[in-house]
């Protein structure tokens, strides 16, 4: 028996009200925690994933969509761009580094990206095991994809084969006839590359050998993919008819990113591939968003996007304008689009914030009303405590302790619930799972939330506690 157990006993004696107050506070705090976790993780990711990428060049359409699809790998691309044009741009003097991306398929929800070794280097990833791809149909798997993706649920191993499915969401037609061999697994970076499966650009081209015409539509259209995947993957196959002999456009540029450093691509780019000959028009996936790409009737290989790093600050003024006006392509700045994204998300976050604060104020009020209302009914108990020898200060402490205990419980439950909810959101809400949200991390400012919860408790119980302190015991006892 002490003040602590006495406070607990009083809380228990009005269990319903206590639980209600704890819940109100917990919900308010959980909302704030979710908000903090989501916004800091998104901001972190945006910051990390856009670092070093000054410009994204892709098909015309929504610039935000272009950045989302090519930098964060969450939205569907805007379309495709002609490989030749992309190469021309990558050789521009204002371009320091240009990394090609060819999208179109996924493996268990992880995107298969046709690119160059420069991408691995750019994201600062290192190999956990194996080697980088050196030939076609070789894949290097990002850490997170590797962890989740092995047969039977275990992690994937070197030498395993993986089969991509068409489209950027699960459920597309499987490319059964094109298994990739896992030759490397990347160490975790915490960035977007953890969730990617990397192959060479040529591999992507080879996997998408569409027969002329209709097949394209078929391939594009697993209905599940309808929303997210008008897969404008570089139907690389969009080659002209049997140009076996001569310098097939795509062919000669085994290294699209001329400036990106040495590409050890074994350029055995096989033109014996039977389907290398689909006309460009067969590029599936309607690409409503990407008139640029699809409008291009010219024969040739295509890419989805080019990640560009400027060679000089001057480029920021010139290059986007050049791309947007002089080519059929579109240039989008990840930084600018991130700001736009923040503004869009900001409205929701702001709403949640207001909601959370209203809940917290309500919790504080409910606690105050409950403690204050119970005071007259408890005045005899309090007086009796004094008769038994308790000091005035003990009564003050008792009431404060009740408020603080409730708020500590609400705070603890709120924080746990906030983390659990974030983890659940990250796992279960498809739109968010792509952002790799996790509840297993602390957001800055959570310590303040604990302090805030206790402060609410202290404030709400202050007046009742002072009134308890001032109880006139003779009067209360004489009243009987």
């Amino acid at each position, binding site marked *: 028996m002490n003040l602590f157990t006495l406070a607990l006993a009083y809380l228990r*004696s009005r269990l319903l009200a206590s639980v209600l107050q704890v819940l109100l506070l917990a919900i308010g705090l959980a909302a704030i925690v979710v908000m903090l976790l989501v916004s800091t993780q998104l901001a972190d990711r945006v910051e990390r994933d856009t670092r070093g990428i000054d410009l994204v060049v892709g098909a015309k359409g929504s610039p935000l969509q272009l950045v989302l699809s090519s930098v964060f790998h969450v939205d569907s691309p805007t379309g495709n761009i002609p490989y030749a044009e992309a190469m021309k741009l990558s050789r521009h003097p204002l371009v320091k580094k240009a990394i090609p991306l060819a999208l179109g398929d996924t493996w268990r929800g992880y995107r298969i990206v046709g690119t160059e070794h420069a991408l691995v280097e750019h994201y600062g990833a290192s190999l956990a095991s194996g080697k980088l791809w050196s030939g076609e149909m070789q894949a290097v798997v990002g850490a997170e994809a590797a962890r989740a993706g092995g047969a039977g649920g275990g992690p994937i191993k070197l030498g395993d084969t993986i089969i991509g499915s068409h489209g950027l969401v699960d459920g597309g037609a499987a490319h059964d006839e094109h298994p990739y061999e896992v030759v490397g697994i990347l160490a975790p970076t915490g960035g977007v590359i953890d969730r990617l499966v990397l192959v060479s650009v040529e591999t992507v081209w080879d996997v998408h050998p569409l027969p002329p015409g209709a097949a394209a539509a078929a391939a594009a259209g697993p209905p599940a993919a309808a929303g997210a995947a008008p897969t404008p993957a570089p139907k690389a196959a969009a080659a002209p008819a049997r140009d076996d002999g001569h310098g097939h456009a795509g062919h000669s540029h085994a290294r699209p990113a001329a400036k990106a450093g040495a590409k050890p691509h074994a350029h055995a780019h096989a033109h014996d591939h039977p389907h290398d000959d689909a006309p460009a028009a067969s590029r599936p996936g309607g690409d409503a968003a990407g008139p640029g790409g699809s409008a291009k009737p010219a024969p040739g290989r295509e890419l989805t996007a080019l990640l560009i790093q400027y060679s000089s600050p001057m480029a920021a003024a010139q290059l986007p304008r050049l791309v947007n006006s002089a080519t059929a392509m579109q240039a989008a700045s990840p930084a600018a689009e991130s700001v736009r994204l923040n503004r869009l998300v900001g409205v929701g976050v702001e709403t949640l914030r207001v909601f959370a604060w209203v809940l917290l104020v309500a919790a504080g009020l409910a606690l105050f009303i409950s403690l204050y209302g119970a005071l007259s009914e408890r005045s005899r*108990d309090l007086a009796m*405590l004094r*008769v*038994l020898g308790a000091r*005035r200060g003990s009564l003050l402490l008792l009431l404060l302790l009740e408020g603080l205990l409730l708020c500590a419980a609400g705070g603890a439950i709120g924080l746990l619930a906030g983390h659990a909810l974030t983890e659940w959101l990250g796992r279960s809400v498809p739109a968010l799972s792509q952002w790799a949200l996790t509840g297993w991390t602390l957001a800055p400012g959570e310590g303040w939330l604990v302090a805030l919860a206790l402060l609410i408790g202290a404030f709400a119980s202050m007046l009742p506690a002072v009134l308890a302190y001032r109880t006139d015991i*003779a009067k209360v006892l004489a009243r009987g």
Partner: protein
Amino acid sequence: MTRIARRDNLRPMTVLEVNALSHRYGNATVVEMPAWSVAAGEPWLLLGASGSGKTTLLHCLAGILAPTQGSVKVGGTDLATLHGSALDRFRGRHIGLLPQRLHLIDCLSVLDNLLLAQYAAGLPRDAAAARGALEALGLAGRAHERPHRLSFGQQQRVALARALINRPTLVLADEPTSNLDDGNCAAALDLLLDQAGRSGAALVIATHDQRVKGRIERRVELTGGMAVPA
């Protein structure tokens, strides 16, 4: 019996000593008591009609109310010299109060009510002593029940056990028999006298109950606000 103890004739074991006490609310004097002395182990009655100031006097004796004038000494300590928490502590350790309305803490078990009395007085919690007290009052089986589940008589016994648990030198009971029928009245009185006697405490029973009068000889009559030991 009942001679008025004069100041120059104090017995060594004087537990309660009142001198020239008066208490006023505003200008109206509620209660006055020229002099009174109670020795250890003595039972006293404080007799008076309802509203005669019994409770006020009792509160003055318990250090709950500071008298407007005069002094109250308990165990030789003048209550007026104690302030704030020192007075609370002193009261908790030396004075046991059995209020008319009992005021048991209902969210605590019977046993915890006793432990609370120890805690509030700043004494170590002695569960064995508390259980022993309950057992002595026939409440051993109810230790873990909430007070409101008990009969009034049982509750009164719990309150008595609580008043005695810290072995006070002075026990003050306010109308302990007013809610009881004749049989229970006699039993409660027996219990009070017995328990107070065992612990060697002086006992002051404030009452207007005629049934009590035959049992205790020492008495203070309170008429018109004037308390005179008879």
